[in-house]
């Protein structure tokens, strides 16, 4: 009978598992092990900084891929990716008309993975615009803007505008012909406004045409001003999704 009281021998796998997940350092970071009971899974979502944007439980129709196609989440993911790659780009880039273009050339030629970094930032920016537009279409066609979500739809429209502005301000930074003339064309359109057209254009460019002042303004807006503003609106957007009772579903 004494046999039964002896602890079963640990397998090799268990030993490795314990070594990785049951040591002092790991447990100081993750206080509990893998959440394998419903109660612990809910706690994991509710108590983790990153996961707590979610509710702990959601309606089963909303986890179907075909309901949201993850488009809002992916827009946000693009924003995160752009922030990471953007910060890395800032290490190499100086927003002056003497250095900007050269910095980009050197980034591409001399920095390890520099070209890849720039490509990622560029293509993610394009992807984000497309994803935001598709997200708007999915919200529209599922009728998810209806009460009580009116205001969150408006927040969404603001997010769309901010996304475009972020991309537009970034477009000037490489200071090549593409950048220069695209911004010239774009700001000329602003200048044609019937009221305050010339004034807005002047404010945006810090002058009458695209030059050093425009570059520093676009840079500042691109790396700090607009990201801050869009983060605030995103926070409100996500909060409202929760406050409005999760995603829309039929009454």
């Amino acid at each position: 009978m004494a046999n039964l009281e002896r602890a079963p021998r640990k397998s090799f796998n268990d030993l490795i598992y314990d070594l990785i997940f049951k040591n002092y350092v790991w447990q100081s970071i993750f206080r509990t092990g893998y959440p394998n009971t419903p109660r612990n899974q809910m706690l994991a979502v509710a108590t983790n900084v990153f996961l707590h944007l979610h509710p702990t439980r959601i309606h089963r129709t909303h986890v179907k891929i075909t309901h949201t196609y993850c488009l809002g989440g992916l827009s946000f993911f693009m924003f995160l990716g752009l922030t990471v790659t953007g910060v890395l780009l800032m290490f190499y880039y100086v927003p002056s008309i003497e250095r900007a273009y050269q910095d980009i050339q050197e980034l591409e030629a001399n920095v390890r993975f520099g070209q890849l970094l720039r490509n990622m930032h560029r293509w993610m920016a394009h992807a984000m615009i497309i994803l935001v537009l598709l997200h708007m279409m999915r919200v529209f066609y599922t009728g998810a803007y209806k009460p009580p979500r009116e205001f969150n739809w408006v927040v969404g429209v603001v997010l769309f505008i901010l996304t475009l502005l972020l991309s537009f301000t970034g477009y000037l930074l490489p200071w090549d012909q593409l950048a220069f003339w695209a911004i010239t064309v774009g700001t000329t359109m602003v200048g044609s406004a019937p009221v305050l057209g010339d004034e807005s254009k002047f404010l945006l460019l810090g002058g009458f045409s695209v030059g050093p002042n425009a570059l520093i303004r676009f840079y500042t807006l691109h790396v700090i001003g607009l990201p801050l503003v869009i983060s605030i609106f995103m926070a409100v957007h996500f909060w409202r999704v929760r406050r409005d009772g999760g995603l829309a579903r039929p009454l």
Partner: protein
Amino acid sequence: MVSRAAAAIRTRPRREREQEVLVWPDLVFIEFISALIFSIALMVLSAMVNAPLLNRADPDTTPNPSKAPWYFLNLQELLLHMEPAWAGVIVPTIALVLLAAIPYWDRDTQGQGVWFGTKFAGRLTVFGFTAATLITSLLIIWDGSLHVVWTENIIRGLGLNSDFSWPGGLDWFRNLRGFDTGIPWESLGFTIGGFTMFEDWRAIPLGIPGTTTDPWLLNLNFPSFLSQQIIPVATMVGLPVAFVVFCKMLGWIQTRRDIALLIFSAFIGVYLTTTIVGTAFRGQGQDLKPPWDIVVLEE
């Protein structure tokens, strides 16, 4: 009157806990996988296609064509067909305000949370999108005078008339500006009771001299006003109205949601068409060209 907050709770569906699943693992897993797929796809794309970098910016050499970033090319496309103030500022502002206003106008809580929630939603979407795409393309072709080129080529090609050219009497139908340049406005004045009315359509006195220096406000150039403002704006207002009336006659429209579906889909059609034309079909001097014929010159 119930408070908005109370109304917001009331318009929520009842919570059905038995129908709920746990965010961990069900949703977190999907999010993780989709993020992974996107990361890999973007990595692959970035490894294969380089972001463009042209010559250093030079204010003295203008590329022809000069284009805004692709997501503004729909507006740049509009610019070719109307007064810049409309295309660049007023139209987009109105479009965004209307877009934001949709939920304040279509407030019925029925049909939310399901794809294409009304009976005719599918038809309205397909019709709105297709018809708007077609009509926009036709309008662009017309304003690019392609119908003139095509007609001339066909008639010449068939050997009907080897030196046929577009009849002068139809000059007004060459393109939008035809309403300005193709009509003999000079001879359209008339006399009532000894007064000659509209002797000069190109300078109809409006303002009181001395109150403004803006010649446009002093003297209205009616033919140009007609082709650059009245016709474009009437088209942008009239077509959506016509769409709604047409679908109403077919019995497809029963609620505001239906109207919203129709107009939104049409909007997406116009948005896409103008973006694509602006991006891929505009060559030097913003002429209509097939994509393979477009080269950028530096001048």
